[in-house]
């Protein structure tokens, strides 16, 4: 009697283990290949390139050669997109702005640097990261990545929580603390001249550069790039197209990116 009971328990146990393990073992075997990592199949290297990915090369030397050009780019962008000027840095809204080398590349902590870097006007704007932290932080999907690599915003959905501002490592996002369509103490509107083709924003939403999606859609280049066309200080295009101008520039020039170590894969490249 005792030995029979023992055999019964053994068989029952083995059956249970086989029942639990078999499906997963079969699944792994039938799929043909068991990956060591959880990365997508295909093994090593980057995933295959599909679709467009817009990017921009900023040739900082050209901005030093043409003083005032950087500011023209900023003005052009802010005029086209109805960006308000509140007249103080606390409430400032900026889609593209001029910044010092120390602030744009704080991780480059060389003990000695060329003097020329000090006065260099460096344009900074949204990096349109391939792996954007702001998109992950947004609780309402108000900010998202489009198929052509642009990190865009739908202001209708923004609830003004500012998680994206905390998440963005580049300070590329601004919050509307005040009504951008309002007027200052002297009765001057914050948006000097409204562009009737583009909407404004309302108080309580975050805004940022949209790589001029609305202009690309009708075959125009971004407003800042248009201003810098003659000097070729800004090169814009599809980085996935090997024939595009930007691909050629990236192939032939050494460029640096803002804080690449954090893995955001920015689409902005700087020639210093």
């Amino acid at each position: 009697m005792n030995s029979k009971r023992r055999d019964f328990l053994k068989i029952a146990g083995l059956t249970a283990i086989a029942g639990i393990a078999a499906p997963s073992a079969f699944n792994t075997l039938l799929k043909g290949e068991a990956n060591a990592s959880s990365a997508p199949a295909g093994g090593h290297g980057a995933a295959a390139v599909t679709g467009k990915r817009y990017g921009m090369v900023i040739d900082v030397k050209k901005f030093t050669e043409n003083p005032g050009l950087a500011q023209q780019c900023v003005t052009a962008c802010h005029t086209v997109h109805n960006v308000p000027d509140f007249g103080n840095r606390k409430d400032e809204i900026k889609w593209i702005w001029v910044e010092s080398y120390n602030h744009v590349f704080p991780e480059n902590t060389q003990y000695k640097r060329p003097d020329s870097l000090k006065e260099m006007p460096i344009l900074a704007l949204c990096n349109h990261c391939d792996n954007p932290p702001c998109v992950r932080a947004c609780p309402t999907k108000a900010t998202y990545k489009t198929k052509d690599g642009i990190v865009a915003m739908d202001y209708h959905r923004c609830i003004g929580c500012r998680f994206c501002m905390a998440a963005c490592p580049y300070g590329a996002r601004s919050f509307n603390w005040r009504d951008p369509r309002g007027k200052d103490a002297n009765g001057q509107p914050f948006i000097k001249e409204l562009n009737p083709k583009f909407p404004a924003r309302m108080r309580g939403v975050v805004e940022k550069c949209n790589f001029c999606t609305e202009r690309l859609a009708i075959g125009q280049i971004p407003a800042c790039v248009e201003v810098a066309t003659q000097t070729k200080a800004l090169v814009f295009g599809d980085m996935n197209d090997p024939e595009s101008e930007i691909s050629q520039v990236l192939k032939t020039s050494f460029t640096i990116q803002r804080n690449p170590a954090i893995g955001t894969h920015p689409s902005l490249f700087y020639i210093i």
Partner: protein
Amino acid sequence: MYGKGRIIPALILFLGLMTAPMWFKSGDVSKLPKPEKPKDYTECVAPTQFMRTAHMQLLNEWRDDILREGGSRTGKTANGTEYVRSLQNGCMKCHSDKKKFCDDCHNYASVKPYCWDCHLQPKEAM
């Protein structure tokens, strides 16, 4: 009836007050809103009845399609006229007077859409 000297006049007064809006014709149902239609255009992007009931959904669809899916920024009407799928650059091109078109119905229905907190009205109405 006990205390009818006070109850009956009070009842009459009460009924009078309750029905006062009817006597003074406030909220007259016969005064339906008449939004001013554009003179130069006869055809909208969809049939009138659909636009009347579902223009807000249509605007949301355009927005999501264009912003998120990379959809076309232009569309074609049933008769083949091309239009811009945009409130500011499309709708308002024909319906250029927001006060006479949008506000007429919105006020009647007591809805307050926040379109114009951000979007810009055509110059005439601003």
